């Protein structure tokens, strides 16, 4: 994959940098890493990170040390859809363990793995601020809440039907 923002995305990058005082453009790093992850295949390769470093005129190491700190940045390739199921206390009280077990057996993968067809990666995550709507998972930009096995079936079927 070619690692370069489109002209349109570059405008977005410039708008982000403009939010901070002159000389404080490093503040744009995390927002731009989000953009890079979205644009370049759902994860951050060394190439993507080096590219972001060049845009901000900072050392590559400054990007690596940030990318490795935050859990939303994927440092390895992921499936087309990443299922991030919350497993913290309040979700556990509402049966998140069963949901995780159900997804594992349905997709035939362990936590951290991707299905052979590249469609799904399963991850467990910690509290996402949806404890009252548990059990829940994050899928891309959105939350899927009040999960049940049949709701999981629907979500997965929907992904296959809208490939």
């Amino acid at each position, binding site marked *: 994959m070619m690692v370069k923002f489109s002209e349109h995305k570059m405008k977005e990058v410039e708008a982000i940098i403009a939010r901070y*005082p002159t000389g404080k453009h*490093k*503040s744009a790093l995390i927002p731009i890493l989000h953009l890079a992850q979205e644009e370049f295949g759902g994860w951050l390769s060394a190439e993507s990170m080096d590219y972001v470093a060049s845009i901000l005129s900072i050392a590559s190491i400054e990007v690596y040390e940030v990318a490795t700190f935050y859990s*939303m940045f994927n440092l390895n390739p992921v499936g087309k859809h990443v299922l991030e199921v919350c497993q913290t*206390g309040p979700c556990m009280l509402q049966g998140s363990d069963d949901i995780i077990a159900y997804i594992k057996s349905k997709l035939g993968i362990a936590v951290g793995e991707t299905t052979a067809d590249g469609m799904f990666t399963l991850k467990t995550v910690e509290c996402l*601020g949806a404890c*009252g709507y548990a059990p829940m998972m994050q899928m891309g930009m959105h939350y899927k809440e009040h999960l049940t096995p049949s709701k999981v079936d629907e979500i997965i079927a929907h992904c296959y039907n809208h490939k």
Partner: protein
Amino acid sequence: MARKLLLEKAHVEGIRHFDVYRREGGYASVEKALKMDPASIVEEVKKSGLRGRGGAGFATGLKWSFLAKPEGVPRYLVCNADESEPGTFKDRFLMEFIPHLLIEGLIVSSFALGSNSTYIYIRGEYAWIVGILEQAIAEAKQNGFLGKNILGAGFDLEIYVQRGAGAYICGEETALIESLEGKRGNPRIKPPFPAIKGLWDCPTVVNNVETLAAVVPIINMGGEEYAKIGVGRSTGTKLISACGNINKPGVYEMDMTISVEEFIYSDEYCGGIANGKKLKACIPGGSSVPILPANLLLKTAKGETRYMNYESLSDGGFASGSMMGSGGFIVLDEDQCVVRHTLTLARFYRHESCGQCSPCREGTGWMEKILQKIENGKGVSSDIDLLWDIQRKIEGNTICPLGDAAAWPVAAAIRHFRDEFEWHVNNPSLCLTQNYGLAHYADELSVVA
């Protein structure tokens, strides 16, 4: 009482849009505040008795008065929308359903503090809320409430939304500032406090979403009137996010005069324990605060009714009380296992430790491993003492309060549920298939009936 100052209009159709919000009386506090002297706005907030809603409960007006004002140096207001404390989802509700209330509060607060660029730092996972806030900001700007020379009062302000990327520690204010500067979220050693040296080394105030939204009613009604709502030093209204084994999980606003019992059992709030079960335990203020067994939750050790406010929830100290914290109210029914629940919290803190301090980095991992061992039926009696010892050595020995926050839930679980830990150790084959349930607490639970 179900008094509402923040969420009263949250369900009005279209309230996310400027026109509807304005028609419902929105932005009146900006019109009023921009005619006031910034110092007198700070005075009103002081008089209101407002305490920070992010968890620590520090007096907001006092915090604002500490802000340094060196000549020629910009000052910043940063809104903490990182909301990552397990059990807490109130700021999300406010931003999602009534975003203009936050923007309105930010304009007034920025004017009071002299911030011309204000940042909302929002947890990265709340991705769709970024769009909602940016839409509200754009509308406010179109209508002259943001940008240059707001309402002709000579005050300029831009508000920017900054997304985090998954790190609970970035809710801690100095870690948040580091993150906003494009770095790892490692908390800073204090002092200097952000009020002196914060964002880009400039004087900075960091406040929670709910705190800044509460500035709107304070300016509208005046600090003194606001202070009359509630009880004692728990003034105004508070948002509580309730979850766990209850009939009606959700976000509730109340003045702080209702009892914990009413909050759990009345249909206006949690609607009782789900599936007709009994209440076993509760963490009343987010995962970091001590868990209480039902008897100590509903009544203090002195036998007095416990109320949903700062003073009453902490009555008895850590020996028999808890804290208001972030307002994340987590309820456990009779079938839940306290060891397992505590294990998930220990895992959370291990995962979220930034790793700068050895007691926190190593201790959180040890606590998780020992709890996992006990939960798996492999624990021995001395493990319980070891756990106690580790949490005690973390508390107070770290750069930021995450260490304490990791220690307290473990300490309280052992303090109040030691027999459940012992049952796990003594019944290794049972603890994987059964729960200790209410066995021991049945007598004490008579107060619930």
